[in-house]
């Protein structure tokens, strides 16, 4: 299992579109992908779960990834977060 801590760097936080990007990565993974935020642990393959958390900009989230492709998933998520969900790029 990999634990991967990431900072939400875009200006709007994890609203529907960033959540969609996360689901895009998590849902095709063979590994289980969970997200821990302010004491809650949810399945990151569910866009609704992600949206319900209302993850604020600037906050830190932790992904718990467990399975054969865990490293690849962690890398992809890291890239997504570092690119600010491709939102503030201008």
């Amino acid at each position: 299992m990999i634990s991967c801590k990431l900072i939400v760097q875009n200006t709007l936080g994890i609203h529907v579109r960033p959540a969609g990007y996360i689901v895009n990565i998590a849902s095709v993974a063979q590994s289980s992908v969970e997200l821990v935020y302010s004491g809650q642990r949810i399945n990151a393959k569910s866009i609704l779960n992600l949206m319900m958390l209302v993850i604020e900009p600037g906050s830190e989230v932790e992904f718990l990834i467990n399975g054969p492709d865990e490293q690849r998933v962690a890398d992809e998520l890291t890239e997504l977060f570092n690119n600010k969900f491709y939102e503030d790029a201008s």
Partner: protein
Amino acid sequence: MLHKQETTQRKIFVGKAASPGYAIAKTKLIVRQRFTVSQLKIPKENTANQIEFFRRGVWQVKKEISNLRDLTLQMAGKDESKIFDSHLMILQDPSLIENVISLIRNEQWNASYAFHLCMQKLIDTFEKRDGIFKDRALDLKDIYNRMLLHLSSGENNFVLQEEIEEGVVLVGFSIGPNMLMHFDKEKVLGLAIDSGSTTSHVSILARSMQIPAVMGLGNLSESIHAGDLLILDGTNGIVIINPDENDISKYKKQIEVFQNQKLELSTMRELEPITMDGKYIRLNANIERYEEASEIISFGATGVGLYRSEFLYFGRDTLPTRSEQAEAYRKVTHQLEPLPVTIRTLDAGGDKMLSSVSMETESNPFMGWRSIRLCLDRKDIFREQLKALIEAGDRGNLKIMFPMISSVSEIERAKDIYDDCCAELKAEGLSIPKIEIGVMIEIPAAVMIIEEIAKMVDFLSIGTNDLIQFTLAVDRTNGKIAPMYEPHHPAVLRSIKLIVDAAHKEGIQVSICGEMASDPLSALLLVGLGVDEFSMVSWCIMECKKIIRSINYDEARAISYEALKFSDANSINNFLRKKYSQKIKRLGISSFIITQDFSSSDRALVRVDGQIERIGV
């Protein structure tokens, strides 16, 4: 999400000409929101069915949203279409689906109530939030509405927000055949629908009800307000929102011409459908409901060539009883006696689902468990229908037709069941009428073994819609490849020739039912290929009769045989136009269903702000 613009500007939309005619009237928006969520405890043994029903709903809504996304992508661009990707993701969210299924399985709630509970909780949560998250509640509501519409047995529970009081044009994203039937016929002056095509069921129905219709208008319903004046041109596939005086006066003239044409065609009613050199071509009507039987006579039909019996099964949770069916069939056979009435046995599945029969979601329903395949598996349903048909055959001239035949053994098995039903009814003391049995040829495999099939039956009927779709491997409802749906493809024409030749060799007749029969060019081509009968929406009959009465069979035959020699549809179309366009124009035939592009040279189209503007109406 597309937002309505507060504007009363004149705007022109171009869609598919689905049913000819014109209307100048106010807009009535069909709001797809009202439905009732019933709260039911379901028996344990039925929970699996409910779960399946729920999954099917998800699948259907997924298709619906995907279509909307593609249309939006075409009409408005990538950014606007992205929201539908999120909708699709929410709809298929694993935790949502799990929750709903567990409520059905463990709490034994019905699917619509289980979904309602889960979504309402989510919507409430989001509505309490601020700003950007609050907006998501709107997305959830959209999905909620779409799903509930399907789960609360779809369009049957549909009600208009208010009753129609004056003549209006109905505008909406989509409209189902049953929905249309709920409205007062006199007050619906036209249909302008965002989705669908000329072969959608509702288009067929609109033509039979003589309501002008334009389908596939993209995002019209999002761009118009209730009460907006609009011009609907079902002959050319055009809608003008808030027309100016110029438009209105032009169209008023157009309406007058159209009415006169209709009047003139009605003189055809009493005349025989016979070519100038004396070949009689039977012109039958397609019907879906027994109520239509009385109308077809007024259109000069020579009988019913296709009675779609499945409409008896739609929009209800139980199967129709034998006596109920027999009564419906009798109303047609008795009323039309001695005219022939061909009733097609249950043709459900594919895009036509029954709520009374448990059907699984199929990834390829058109090639799935439908029609005769369903009937041969569910013999209980098939037998009840066959017995009802035999009972209804006591008077009149009834013929029975099996759809979707792909093999000899299917015909053998269907006929065995039929014989068995006859024997049982005879034992009950009924005298068994002589009923002709035929099959529909709509699968290429059946064409390849047509000589064997022709030996087994009393008549053949070619279902061109499916035959074209399966021969060309083109889904006629998929807008992206719709131009490939080419009725005059040489593969289709040569198939028809094979069928006709095999039938005539056995001394039996061939009928054509399907959209092709009601297209003037196609009709001429088919007459030339030797087709004996046509079956079409009734309003097309007089027009077709006028054409048939104007040609020599020998000439048509020579032209059709010449057309068979071409190797692509384009050359065939050009050849046919060269041979026939003058004649068709001279006859003043105004409706072109398949060969719409016939008059495209008269049309100049330009794009203005993403909308298609037509110059010089």
